[in-house]
């Protein structure tokens, strides 16, 4: 496909106004794209950041404007059509049009799916009662904030992943009695090393939180339509006024499925983030892409992934570039005074080297797979994280032996 002429570039429509969808539009304009750009989302209002929803937003009195990504003026000044509060109901690939809820159609030369993901529902009886919440949207966060205000209550967190742990930390700080139920034997089991997981668990316990490992929830008991207890598979009943369900998210792919695009744990894209229809790209939480860093297909839910994939697609639309997407994945979570950062995608079987001090809570875990460094986790050691991001962006990889040496510094210049 020839690069589009900037003067009469074909319209770009972006489905989803989250961090990724907004970034596509912003990067198109930054790169000088002059054609029409429209961003459509079912959620009303201006695009906002999600990371604060499980942290500061829950304790803050601040309104929506504090977490908005851009002001309303940004969209006017940059000629970006923002259509929020309306969904795309269908894609007509032959005609190059999308249909909106109200029966309107938008033409596209290129379509970007940035539809995100939706929280996985807890498939047990009683999950629809008052006091049972998930956390994804501003509306969810506002509901949860209301539940956490007022007198101390019993909060049960189902799922020991990032969202659950962040909310657990906020709830404990607010004086609630918190219990985390995790079906696997450790926290953040899919992503974190045992060393990191153990440290995080210890910090939560130090704040009075109970953690139940290896059990799953079989029912939510209630009275008068409100939740009162969580029943576990060994018969234990945990009293609960609030239940936060954080057991992962499923990609929103309905639109792609109906349009006949390849879908398999997300919208399937190639190394350039193109779907099975080259006029349609998919990015962020909804996209299943072949990851250079993982050495396999993966689907990541992170701000970094959404933003970097958005920039990549915008650059391709503008220049026609055939560059593969290779940005280094990184993640973070803040819980209490823990500032945890991860770079790279961990593999199941790995060798690990720990630098720093697990007692004082300032350490990094270097994880190797087949003798190659592929993941670095840092707890309150931000310089290691920044260094690791630079290093993993190159093809240089220190050996475990090199990392073990105390004087080791994560500077690419040490290996070139």
């Amino acid at each position, binding site marked *: 496909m020839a690069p589009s002429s900037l003067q009469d570039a074909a319209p770009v429509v972006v489905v989803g106004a989250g961090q990724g969808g907004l970034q596509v539009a912003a990067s198109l304009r930054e790169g000088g794209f002059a054609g029409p750009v429209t961003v459509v989302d079912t959620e009303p209002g201006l695009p906002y*950041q999600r990371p604060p929803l499980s942290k500061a937003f829950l304790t803050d009195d601040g309104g929506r404007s504090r977490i908005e*990504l851009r*002001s309303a003026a940004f969209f006017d*000044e*940059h000629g970006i059509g923002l259509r929020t509060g309306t969904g795309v109901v269908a894609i007509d690939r032959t005609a190059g049009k999308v249909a909106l809820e109200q029966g309107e159609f938008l033409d596209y030369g290129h379509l970007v799916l940035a539809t995100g993901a939706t929280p996985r529902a807890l498939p047990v009886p009683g999950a629809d009662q008052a006091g049972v919440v998930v956390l994804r949207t501003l509306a969810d966060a506002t509901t949860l904030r209301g539940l956490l205000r007022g007198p101390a209550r019993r909060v049960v967190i189902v799922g020991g992943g990032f969202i659950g742990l962040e909310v657990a930390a906020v709830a404990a700080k607010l004086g609630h009695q918190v219990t985390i139920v995790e079906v696997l034997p450790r926290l953040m089991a899919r992503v974190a090393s045992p060393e990191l997981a153990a440290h995080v668990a210890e910090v939560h316990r130090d704040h009075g939180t109970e953690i139940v490992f290896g059990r799953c929830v079989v029912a939510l008991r209630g009275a008068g339509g409100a939740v009162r207890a969580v029943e576990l598979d060994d018969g234990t009943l945990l009293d609960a006024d609030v239940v936060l369900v954080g057991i992962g998210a499923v990609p929103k792919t309905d639109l792609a499925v109906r349009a006949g695009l390849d879908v398999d744990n997300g919208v399937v894209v190639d190394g350039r983030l193109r779907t099975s229809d080259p006029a349609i790209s998919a990015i962020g939480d909804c996209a299943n892409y072949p990851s250079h860093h993982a050495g396999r297909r993966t689907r990541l839910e992170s701000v970094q992934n959404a933003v970097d994939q958005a920039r990549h697609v915008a650059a391709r639309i503008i220049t026609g570039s055939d560059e593969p997407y290779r940005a280094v994945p990184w993640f973070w979570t803040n819980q209490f005074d823990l500032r945890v950062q991860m770079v790279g995608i961990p593999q199941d079987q790995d060798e690990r080297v720990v630098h720093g001090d697990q007692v004082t809570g300032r350490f990094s875990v270097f994880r190797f797979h087949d003798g190659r460094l592929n993941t670095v986790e840092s707890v309150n050691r*931000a310089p290691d994280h920044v260094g690791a991001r630079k290093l993993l962006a190159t093809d240089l990889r220190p050996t475990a032996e090199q990392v073990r040496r105390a004087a080791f510094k994560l500077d690419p210049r040490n290996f070139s």
Partner: protein
Amino acid sequence: MARITYISPAGVKTTVEAEDGSTVMQTALRNNVDGIVGECGGNALCATCHVYVDEAQFAGLGPIVDFEEELLDCTSSPRKDTSRLSCQIPVTGAVDGLIVRLPETQE
């Protein structure tokens, strides 16, 4: 409310109204001030919202906590005596009239 002035490396001044409770980083993004990236969303994790605070105003901003201190050694453009991460400068009436200069690079 506070008025904050951002000066680009080329000397272009942009003055905007900032909302209390926001940060100097967030205010720049919301007002489309180029030169601040804020890649991590304002969590002091990435050092891409580096600014040089006006010398006379630097001391009035309050202390730099340890995690910001560490990241200031990771900035893309050189750290100076008046370097701060703008995500760690909250907007209050006390910062009205703040002037920050933007570095050549953030990433």
